């Protein structure tokens, strides 16, 4: 890959608004897990699994929309 193109892509990725979703994913996962469990270790485990599920779901939809956009 062209180094300039790579650098541009990295810069755009670094400044992308998608990163603003990260604190939301963390907060939503922790709060949701805390409403389903009482012990902290179970909350953390559940939150990690739920957060990964959210990220996977978002990634799948990203691929689908990217494919549909041609």
């Amino acid at each position, binding site marked *: 890959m062209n180094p300039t193109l790579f650098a541009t892509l990295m810069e755009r990725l670094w400044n992308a*608004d998608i990163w*603003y979703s990260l*604190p*939301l994913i*963390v*907060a*939503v996962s*922790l*709060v*949701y897990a*805390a*409403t*389903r*469990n*009482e*012990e*902290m270790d179970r*909350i953390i485990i559940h939150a990690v699994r739920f957060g990964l599920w959210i990220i996977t779901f978002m990634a799948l939809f990203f691929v689908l929309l990217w494919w549909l956009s041609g």
Partner: protein
Amino acid sequence: MTDDSAGREQATKVLLKDPVMAAFLAWLIPGLGHLYQGRIAKGILFFICIMGTYVYGAYLGGSSQLGYARAVYFSFRNDEWRLPYLCQIGVGLPSMPALVQAMRMNDNKKVLFGGFMAPPRRVDTVETDPNFDQPTLDKLQLTLNRFFELATVYTMIAGLLNVLAIYDALSGPVIMPPTKKEKQPKQSDQKSAKS
């Protein structure tokens, strides 16, 4: 003891004290209801996650020039319904200043604290109005750009998450059904049972 009954036993062990008071305190300040019930770790967790989301959203949706937390405001004027406030009010006490500011603006009194949580002024506001120096909604969205929407989303999500926390304070944790892996006994357990 199965995992389902273990979960039920865990739930019954959670002392809810006065659940209605706990739910009210949880609405007022996220996590406070759980602290009242003695569920310290969860109370701190809810406070950090929900208030952190809310405060960050309030920070994104303002500036020193426009005033802070401009994305959190109350308005139900005929042509300007601020529906996101219905979610933001899920975080009770921190969202109350928006009501005070809206009442002051409605009574033609100058809003407080540089416009903190104040609704934007109408476009047709006369120059003699004490709130003429306040920005319009167009000015807010032009200046804050996408951060106005981001701030709205953050504060709305914080409010909605607090609804879950309120329900947890009111009724305790929701019991999870055991997963398939937890249902299947281990092979070593089966062998020891046979012997």
